[in-house]
């Protein structure tokens, strides 16, 4: 189930709110857990077993590691290894096996069976959460969770279940046992949820439609500028899609008394690639820093090893986003950019933020074009168009897309900056009735857009 669906908004959400706040405080964790499992099972029930298995395995290994880390640290390490291995195997099989096996068969290893596996939704997120939990126990940074259901809730909590943020255990440890929701906090959650919904439904979907239209243009209609408009549309789309989802997750968490970490911090205003990655999908980049980059030695090693570390981390980051060479390429692209920034450009860039900001944005935009095209020839064609290979600089169609896409692109740009956020907050404090009226109106527009998505005329005038 996704948050921006009719089922969620008008059936699931009212039910979970009602059940949660009617239930006595002791039972609330169970209510949340039960609804989380339903949420997860909705649509692909079979993978609920994988989820339950993962919960059990990680719970038990957590206990084993905790019991042994003080006196039998080698044994604890062994068990940590087994547990992490188990998690990675599960992730590997379900996410990467189909890709890897098809590649291997492609190079002549025909005996490798190709399994037909659907990617279990959210597996990349909850697996990473479980690994962080185990490692943190081993490192003695957190205390083990003895309550099975509390642990189950930590892994499967529906707000962050399918698209993050990747919540570290220490962030929610206390709240799992004791949390309080005030009306103001609930309202704050509502604010986040609405913001996320607006980003997803009113911005991301429209931008996505614009991108799809441009992407499917034939060679006859496309041009350099058009290709860039499409690339910008996608750049904003993926930001609003992803950050909208994170906002909704954070908002829902707040409604139930959880405080999830921030996942995005205006990444498109970053002045360098390094700073972009400190602002984009923060919970993922900090995960990789914490559990891969630093264990490898971080930057306190020789430059050669540092280069190796960076490339490994970014290749993995790329691969985490999907099983495909293009994701790998996309990750390495950032690895190289970061190395360039570190070793070549250094501090030579001007102190003024704008040149860096613009350059970073353009590089990120280009990066997304590697990200979005799983097919290499399509990627080359599209990127080629962006740099004028085989098409004109601009044509009449460019004008068409400029005119029809201008509003949504400008809105996208505006919503990506903290200026909007500041204004919004000031307005809310000053004219609070008006700004709530505005939110109601926006919510109604979201509902309208959701209803329109199902507008699906059956016109038999052709048949």
């Amino acid at each position, binding site marked *: 189930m996704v948050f921006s669906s009719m089922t969620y908004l008008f059936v699931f959400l009212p039910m979970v709110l009602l059940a949660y706040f009617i239930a006595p405080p002791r039972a609330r964790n169970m209510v949340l857990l039960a609804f989380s499992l339903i949420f997860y099972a909705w649509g692909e029930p079979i993978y609920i077993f994988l989820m339950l298995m993962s919960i059990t395995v990680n719970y*038990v290994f957590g206990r084993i590691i905790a019991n042994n880390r003080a006196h039998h640290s080698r044994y604890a390490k062994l068990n940590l290894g*087994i547990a992490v291995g188990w998690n990675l195997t599960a992730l590997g099989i379900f996410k990467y096996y189909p890709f890897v096996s098809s590649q291997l068969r492609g190079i002549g290893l025909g005996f490798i069976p190709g*399994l037909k*596996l659907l990617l279990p939704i959210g597996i990349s997120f909850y697996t990473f959460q479980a690994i962080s939990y185990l490692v943190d126990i081993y490192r003695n940074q957190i205390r083990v969770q003895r309550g099975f259901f509390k642990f189950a809730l930590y892994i499967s909590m529906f707000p962050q279940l399918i698209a993050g943020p990747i919540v570290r255990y220490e962030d929610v440890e206390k709240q799992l046992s004791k949390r309080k929701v005030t009306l103001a906090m609930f309202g704050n959650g509502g604010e986040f949820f609405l913001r996320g919904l607006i980003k997803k439904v009113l911005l991301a979907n429209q931008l996505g439609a614009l991108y799809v239209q441009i992407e499917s243009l034939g060679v006859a209609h496309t041009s350099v500028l058009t290709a860039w408009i499409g690339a910008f549309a996608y750049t904003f789309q993926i930001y609003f899609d992803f950050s909208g989802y994170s906002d909704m997750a954070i908002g829902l968490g707040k409604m139930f008394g959880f405080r999830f970490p921030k996942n995005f911090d205006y990444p498109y205003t970053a002045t360098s690639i390094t700073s972009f990655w400190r602002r984009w999908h923060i919970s993922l980049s900090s995960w990789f820093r914490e559990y891969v980059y630093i264990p490898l030695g971080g930057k306190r090693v020789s430059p050669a090893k540092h280069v190796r570390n960076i490339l490994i981390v970014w290749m993995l980051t790329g691969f985490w986003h999907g099983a495909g060479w293009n994701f790998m390429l996309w990750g390495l692209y950032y690895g190289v950019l970061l190395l360039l920034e570190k070793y070549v450009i250094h501090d030579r860039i001007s102190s003024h933020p704008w040149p860096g900001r613009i350059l970073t944005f353009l590089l990120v935009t280009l990066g997304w074009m590697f990200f979005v095209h799983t097919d290499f020839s399509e990627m080359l064609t599209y990127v080629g168009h962006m740099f004028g290979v085989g098409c004109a600089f601009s044509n009449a169609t460019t004008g068409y897309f400029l005119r029809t896409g201008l509003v949504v692109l400008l809105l996208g740009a505006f919503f990506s900056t903290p200026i909007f956020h500041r204004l919004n907050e000031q307005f809310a404090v000053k004219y609070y009735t008006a700004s709530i009226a505005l939110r109601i109106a926006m919510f109604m527009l979201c509902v309208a857009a959701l209803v329109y998505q199902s507008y699906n005329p059956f016109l038999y005038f052709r048949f």
Partner: protein
Amino acid sequence: MSEQWDIEKRRQLYIVAFQVVAAAALFVFVWFIAHEKKYKEVDVPQFVAELSEITQDEWHEEDQLSLKRRFGLAANDFAAVGYFGPNSNMDAAELLLVRVNDKSQTDAVVEAMKNRVAYQCTCFDGYGEDQMALLKDARYLTRGYYVFLIISSDASSVERAFLKQIEP
């Protein structure tokens, strides 16, 4: 001392057992999930012709227009179609094998088959007992990309032969 040692050892055994079970459970689950059958590809029209010879039913191969007329299905919407229709209006036996292009078509095909059978039932109801028996025993098989309708005096044999041929 040794008692404590035993307890420790037993605990270790339990842990090993859990590790094994955890690993095994994952692989069993994967096997279970991935164990979706893959069906063999066959030359549909020829295959249906072969199947039609299994019984002595009165049927013959029909063209695409008959298919469109009776089932409302356009043959070129699908990857392949084989259709045997009744010889006369007093026969009910039919075979229709459709290989769909993608599985989203399956429901529509089964629906069309059911409508056809329902229509045939209205023709024979209270009239042709034998034909009604065949129609009541109509089988709709959905296997992979194949959708198969059997209305035959020996539907089980046809079904068995069909499955034998396409199952791996």
